[in-house]
C-alpha cells in the first residue's frame, strides 16, 4: 500500500505542471473503453453470424436430415452430421467419465491432504498441464500413448471379450492400432483435468474452515469430511466446473484430430476410429470447396450452438455460488 501511493506520488511530482485536463480527452477515453467493451460483444455476434451464414446453404439443401444423416460423400455431394455429432458427444462423455474423478482427486489432494511445503509445486505442475498446447497432447497421444494403449489394453481386452454379448461389440477392436474414440476420450480427459481441478480447488478453498473443523471435531474421517461436508457444499460449482470441462472437450480440435482415427463410420465399439465435428473440420477444411465447405461450416454452427449452451450453463452455475 505504502509503496503504491509512493509510486503514484513519484509519478505525478516531477512532471511539469499539467495544464487543466481537457474534458474532451476524458470523453474520448471513456468512449474508447466503451467501444472496446462493445467489441467483445460484436465479435461473439460476428462469430455466430458468419458461421451460420456460411453453413446456411448446407442446412437449406439437406434440411433437418443434415443432423440425422450419416452420409459424408464428397463425390456425390451428400453430407450429414450424425457420425461427427455422435463422435463428439461420445469422446466428450468418455473424457468426463475418466477426467472428473481424477480432477476431484487432485483438488481434494491439494486442499486437504497435501503438506504445505508441497502445495505450491504440486499445484504448479497441474497448472502447467493446462498450458501445454493441444497439438503437443496430440503428438503425445499418437506417438507415446496409442502404441502402449494398443498393446496393453486394446489387444488383451479384445481377446478377452471376443464373442461376448454387448461388451463383445462395445470393447472389441477390429484393428488394434491404439487410435479411436476411447483414446480421444482419454487424451481429452487429461486435457480437461487441470481446468476442472483448479476451479474445484478454488471452490473447496472458499468453504469456511469452521465447517471442516467441526466435522473433524465430531470424529469424522477425512473421507467423511470430504463426502458429507465439502462435496455437498461445493456441489453446484463443481458441476459448473465439470460443464466448463465439457465445453472444452467438445470443441478441442488438434489433439483429437491426432488420435481419433478420422473415420466416417458409426461403430458400436469405443476402440474403433471415429471423428468429431472439430476433427472433421480441421481435416477437410483446407481442401474443401462448394457444398463441402458449406457443410463443414454447418458442422461448425452445430458445434457453436452446443458448446455455447454448455458454457452458458457452466458460467451460470459457477457464478451463482460466487455471489452467494
Amino acid at each position, binding site marked *: *500500500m505504502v509503496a*503504491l*501511493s509512493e*509510486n*503514484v506520488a513519484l509519478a505525478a511530482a516531477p512532471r511539469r505542471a499539467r495544464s487543466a485536463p481537457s474534458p474532451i480527452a*476524458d470523453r474520448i*477515453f471513456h468512449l474508447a*473503453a466503451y*467501444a*472496446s*467493451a462493445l*467489441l*467483445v460483444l460484436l*465479435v461473439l455476434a460476428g*462469430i455466430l453470424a*458468419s458461421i451460420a*451464414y456460411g453453413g446456411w446453404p448446407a442446412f437449406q439443401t439437406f434440411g433437418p436430415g443434415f443432423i440425422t444423416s450419416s452420409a459424408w460423400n464428397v463425390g456425390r455431394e451428400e453430407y450429414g452430421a450424425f457420425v461427427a455429432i455422435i463422435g463428439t458427444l461420445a469422446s466428450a462423455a468418455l473424457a468426463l467419465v475418466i477426467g472428473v474423478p*481424477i480432477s476431484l482427486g*487432485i483438488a*481434494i*489432494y491439494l486442499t*486437504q491432504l*497435501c503438506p504445505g511445503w508441497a502445495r505450491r509445486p*504440486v499445484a*504448479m*505442475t*497441474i*497448472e*502447467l498441464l493446462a*498450458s*501445454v498446447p*493441444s*497439438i*503437443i*497432447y496430440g*503428438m*503425445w497421444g499418437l*506417438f*507415446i500413448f496409442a502404441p502402449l494403449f494398443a498393446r496393453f489394453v486394446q489387444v488383451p481386452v479384445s481377446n478377452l471379450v471376443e464373442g461376448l454379448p454387448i461388451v463383445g461389440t462395445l470393447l472389441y477392436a477390429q484393428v488394434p492400432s491404439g487410435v479411436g474414440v476411447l483414446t480421444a476420450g482419454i487424451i481429452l480427459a487429461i486435457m480437461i*483435468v487441470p481446468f476442472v481441478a483448479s476451479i474445484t480447488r478454488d471452490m473447496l478453498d472458499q468453504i469456511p474452515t469452521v465447517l471442516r473443523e467441526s466435522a*473433524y471435531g465430531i*470424529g469424522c*474421517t477425512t*473421507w*467423511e469430511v470430504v463426502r458429507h461436508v465439502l462435496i455437498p457444499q461445493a456441489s453446484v460449482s463443481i458441476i459448473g466446473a465439470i460443464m466448463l470441462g465439457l*465445453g*472444452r472437450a467438445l470443441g478441442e480440435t*488438434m489433439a483429437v484430430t*491426432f488420435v481419433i482415427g478420422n473415420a466416417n463410420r458409426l461403430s458400436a465399439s469405443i476402440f474403433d476410429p471415429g471423428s468429431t465435428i472439430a476433427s472433421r*473440420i*480441421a481435416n477437410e*477444411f*483446407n481442401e474443401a470447396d462448394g457444398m463441402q465447405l458449406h457443410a463443414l*461450416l454447418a458442422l*461448425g454452427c452445430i458445434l*457453436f450452438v452446443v*458448446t*455455447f449452451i454448455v*458454457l452458458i450453463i457452466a*458460467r451460470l452455475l459457477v457464478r451463482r455460488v460466487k455471489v452467494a
Partner: protein
Amino acid sequence: MDARPNLAPASHGAAALAAPTWGRVRAGRRTADRALKILCALATLLGAVVLGSILLMLIVEGLRGFSLALFTEPTPGPGSEGGGIANAILGSLVMTTLGIVVATPVGVMAGTYLAEYGKTSKLADLIRFLNDILLSAPSILIGLFVYTVMVRTMGGYSGWAGGVALAIIATPVIVRTTEDMLRLVPGPLREAGAALGAPPSLVIRHVTWRAAQAGIVTGILLALARIAGETAPLLFTALNNNSWFSPNLMGGVANLPVMIYQFALSPYENWRQLAWAGALLITVAILALSITARVFLRGGKAR
C-alpha cells in the same frame, strides 16, 4: 513426483490428531478413508507423470533434431533433405506479436470499462458474461470466423488473418485479468485522485493502472502463452508455407504449430524430425512464459 512422500503419513493436521484414536474407528470407515487418500494422491501423481512423460518425449525426440540449420534455414519441400524451421519460428513470432499488439489495447480498455465505468450496469454484466464464454470458446470456431470474414474477402490465406484470429483468442484473457486486477485496487486511491481534481480518465491512467500494473502484465503474458501454441485457428487463416513468406504477409505464412501438425504426420523422416524440434521449442517457450507470468503475479501481489 512430489506426491509420493505424502502417501504414508497423510500428514494433515486434523488427520494426524485423529491418528491415536484409530483403534476405535470401525474398519470400514478406516478403509474408506485410506482409499480416498491413496486415490487422491494417485490422481495427483498421474498428472505429474503425464507432464513428465510429455516433457521427456519432447526432450528425447526434439534434441535429436537440434542443429544450427534449424534456426537459419526455411522448411524443406517434400522429399528434399535437411532444412530448418527458421521461417516457421519467424512467422510464429510475427503473428503472435501481431495478435498481442491488437489484443492488448482492446483487452485492457475493455477490462477498464468493466471495472471502472460499467461496474454493475446491465451492459457490463452482459459483456462480462459473454467475455467469460469467449474465453473458453473452441478456438476452431474463431478460426472459421476469421476465415469467412478475412480470408475469403481478402482472396487468400494471410498472416494478417492469422494475427487477427490470435488477437480474438487473446483478448478475453486480457479483459478478464485486467478487470480482476483493477478491482483489487482500493477505492480510496481513486478517491484521492479525484479529490486532487483529476478527471476519471487521468485517475485511471495514472493511479489505477499503475497500481494494477503487475497484474495487467501477467494477463498479457498469460494471453501470450495461450496463443503461442494455438493451431486450429491458424490452420484456416495463415496455413503454412515451405519458404520465406512475403513481407506483406499475404499468402501462406509459415508458423510453428501448423508446421508441427503437417510435418509430424508426414512420411518424410526429416520432416518429422523438424516437427519434434519445433514441438520442443514451442513447449519450452510456452511453459517458460506461464511460469514467468505466475512468478510475476506473485511478485506483484507481495508488494
